[in-house]
């Protein structure tokens, strides 16, 4: 005879399906990203302090050139956004490469949930932790460089921030799927996408200074458009914006939707290609 308690214990666990499964996978990955980042104090220094130190050099360069103070505010906003771009590259784009190197990538593919739920969780966790860490840059801007921000429309700021982050992290999800194929190249591609993207996005200067190249960048790189929009909300005329704010918000919305679809498509295609070429779990290529 089997006792009722034993029967209950041996019964198959109730399976979570559909939306609830994806939701739980996403929140679980968000939790891991947040808790994991807090457990490594050295990375807090790298993610929070270093981008701000880089920003200081550019602010002091404006000062050395005798430029109007409003340019320093432009560089400070760029410095704060640089932390998010680094997180998109190294925390999203290269994440599946790290997982492959650690021998954990196969667990992602064996899990019952979709990869998009896992990537969305990583993105949410990345935005939250980087937002917390950007406090260092904000503090430097306000109390060390005395950047003045007046009469900010909080609603517009929230809208532009959310839509910029969606576009950026959707791009990160696309990159992460591309890096499924890569070995050492993933590291080099992330390196190659740092300073060049800073330049074409006008991270430390108004993108309008690039002339036609600035318009081309705004049409291709979400960081360029999002940064310009955030500067316009925060600094108004001193931002020396590229396009009217509503147009930039519309462009960011298009970026967000397009990259989310692209990420989903690329993930499916490149997962199949990686399996076909036997690279999915191949370390140290």
């Amino acid at each position, binding site marked *: 005879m089997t006792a009722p308690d034993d029967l209950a214990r041996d019964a198959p666990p109730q399976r979570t399906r559909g939306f609830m499964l994806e939701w739980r996978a996403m929140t679980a990955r968000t939790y891991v990203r947040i808790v994991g980042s807090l457990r490594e104090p050295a990375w807090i220094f*790298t993610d929070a302090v270093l981008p701000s130190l*880089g920003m200081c050099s550019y602010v*002091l*360069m404006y000062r050395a050139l005798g430029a109007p103070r409003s340019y320093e505010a432009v560089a400070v906003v760029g410095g704060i956004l640089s932390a998010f771009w680094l997180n998109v590259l190294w925390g999203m784009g290269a994440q599946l490469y790290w997982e492959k*190197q650690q021998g954990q990538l196969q667990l992602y593919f064996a899990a019952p949930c979709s990869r998009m739920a896992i990537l969305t969780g990583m993105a949410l966790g990345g935005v939250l932790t980087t937002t917390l860490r950007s406090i260092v840059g904000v503090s430097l801007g306000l109390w060390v460089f005395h950047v003045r921000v007046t009469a900010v429309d909080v609603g517009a700021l929230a809208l532009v921030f959310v839509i910029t982050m969606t576009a950026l992290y959707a791009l990160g999800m696309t990159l992460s799927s591309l890096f499924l194929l890569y070995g050492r190249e993933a590291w080099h591609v992330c390196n190659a996408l740092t300073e060049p993207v800073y330049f074409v996005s006008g991270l430390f*200067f108004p993108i309008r*200074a690039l002339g036609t190249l600035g318009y081309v960048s705004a049409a291709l790189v979400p960081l360029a458009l999002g940064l310009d929009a955030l500067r316009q909300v925060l600094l108004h005329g001193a931002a020396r914006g590229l396009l009217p704010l509503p147009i930039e918000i519309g462009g960011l919305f298009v970026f967000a939707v397009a990259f989310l679809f692209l990420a989903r498509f690329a993930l499916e295609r490149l997962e199949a290609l990686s399996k076909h070429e036997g690279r999915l779990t191949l*370390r*140290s290529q």
Partner: protein
Amino acid sequence: MRTFVTRLRSATWLGWQLDSNWTDPFLFLVYTVLRPLATGLILAGIFWAVGSRARTPEAFAGFWLANAFHNFVNQALVGMGYAVVEEREEYETLKFVVVSPVGMFTYLAGRAVVKLAMAVIGVVMLLAIGAWLLHLRWPATGAHLGPLALTLALGVAATVSSGFLVAGLGLSMPRAAINVNEGIMVGLYLLCGVIFPIDLLPRALQNVSLALPFTYWYEALRRFTLGHGASARLGAWSDGTLLAALAASTLAFVLLGRYGYLALERRARRLGRLDQTTLF
């Protein structure tokens, strides 16, 4: 000596393979120049943005010049730190290098040779871009080629010596090695006044800056190439005093690099950290 040269040549060849064989030569060349080019273009973007509103635009040439030579620091100095990270964490081959006849010190010297060559490519390209795109002139009227050659030699010696120190830190601090490398790269860019005079730093940081050979290196490069430096504080020094400060700080870093590295390597061995992987 002949043994050292043979081992150095082997280490250099291996370093070249490690750095470059992940792609074809053309793409590798593009990759090598992409980052330094972009950092230069960011400065150009700032210059274009400010335009006629700058009160002291003549300072820009000095910033561009120092930023170009800072490529040595990014490539060679920090690159030697990353060589340790790659060998230990990514390829897990550091232990084999340690027990090989080449040894870690000569191996790192070989890696440095490759990275210095890559840095030279970046510097030459940045100087050429500056001349072509921004009409900057090198060397300008008033340049002193003799002291400039001495300055270059001292700067390269300081770079490689500091690279050994960074590599030693990487050996003894496995978990934080990447953070140390990144911190040094950004920290030196700020502390040594690459793109602004150190006079703009708070006084305490200026004193830290004056303990580093690269501060004198960038100032001397500006002075002997363009005929003027950037810092009012260092501008009061004669050419001889500036060169003496560069030579003295370089000598200190050469000694620190040599003996500091060996001490750090011994420490890493004693603590069992030589092949301790923490990332992958």
